[in-house]
């Protein structure tokens, strides 16, 4: 068994799930359910408004989502907290993993960093396009939305898993030999 690969969790699934459910409950009681993907639009809007205000104002969606063109909101700070917490957790448990190419990717598509970085970018593009189209992501739709028994979130999550599993099975076909 290797040490500090950054892969193996130090928190078991039940504790992680319990903690996320508790964070959602506290957030819903104090402010609102948790969500992440809207803040990508907010960041885009505030940035575009700073460099090209006319262009930003031409998108009603940007103007409405990035209301007031400010990042000083509860929602944005929640999202800002995620890398902060991730960093502190990695620091506390010595689980930094600044590898260029993830293990599964390298085994299937080779060790080329350029290829992985390009596909990560494209994956991110598709991810946020889908999230904004559907009005939420894993946090907002799957965790918060399904917890609230929202019909749209059940549909989104079902379509998400069918598509993600099909894509992953296609990208990473099962093989007998490992490594």
């Amino acid at each position: 068994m290797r040490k500090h690969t950054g892969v193996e969790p130090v928190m078991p699934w039940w504790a992680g799930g319990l903690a996320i459910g508790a964070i959602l409950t506290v957030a819903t009681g104090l402010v609102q359910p948790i969500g992440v993907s809207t803040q990508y639009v907010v960041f885009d809007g505030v940035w575009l408004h700073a460099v090209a205000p006319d262009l930003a104002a031409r998108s009603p969606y940007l103007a409405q989502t990035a209301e007031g063109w400010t990042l000083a909101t509860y929602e944005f700070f929640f999202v800002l907290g995620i890398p902060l917490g991730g960093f502190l957790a990695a620091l506390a448990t010595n689980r930094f993993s600044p590898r260029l190419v993830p293990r599964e990717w390298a085994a299937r598509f080779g060790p080329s960093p350029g290829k992985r970085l390009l596909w990560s970018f494209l994956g991110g593009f598709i991810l946020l396009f889908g999230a904004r189209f559907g009005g939420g992501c894993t946090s907002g739709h799957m965790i918060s939305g399904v917890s609230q028994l929202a019909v749209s979130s059940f549909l989104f999550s079902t379509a998400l898993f069918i598509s993600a599993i099909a894509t992953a099975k296609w990208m990473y076909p099962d093989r007998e030999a490992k490594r």
Partner: protein
Amino acid sequence: MKLLLGLVLGAAFGAVLQLSGASSHTKIVNALRLKDLTIIKLILMAIGVGMLGVHLLDLLGLANMKVKELYVLGILLAGAIFGVGFAVSGYCPGTALAAAAEGKPDAWMTIAGGLVGAMVFAFLFPELEEHLLAVGSYGAVTLHGELGIAGIWLAAPMGALCIWLAHRLPGGAGTP
């Protein structure tokens, strides 16, 4: 004060994602390949606890609910698109942020791609709204709302089912 609260709750969320392996490309990809169900168990547990917590709060009149709009065709398409991005990148919009903070360059690229994807969506929105978001549009509907009962009556059995399922699914197998 509210900003600080956001930062603290977000940091707690990010720390849990990191510690429980949700920010790991390997863990996500192997969950989607159905090789290692740890992350599926984690999500089911989070939903189960969340359902119970949120609807108990709601019973006491303390929940600030925010239910997303239902537009059947658009939601199904969006979920399918999101799923492809999830499998290709191995991150979701939240876990990419935690992974980026661990120093993973591919997570940075996922965030960069996400910012561009969100921007493109923002400028396509008027078109999409007119043609796709109007199909099968029902507003912010919930299961319990449709039945006309308090959420906890559904959340209690369904939450328990999620937690039971999380417990029953095999876990930890398939990783060295």
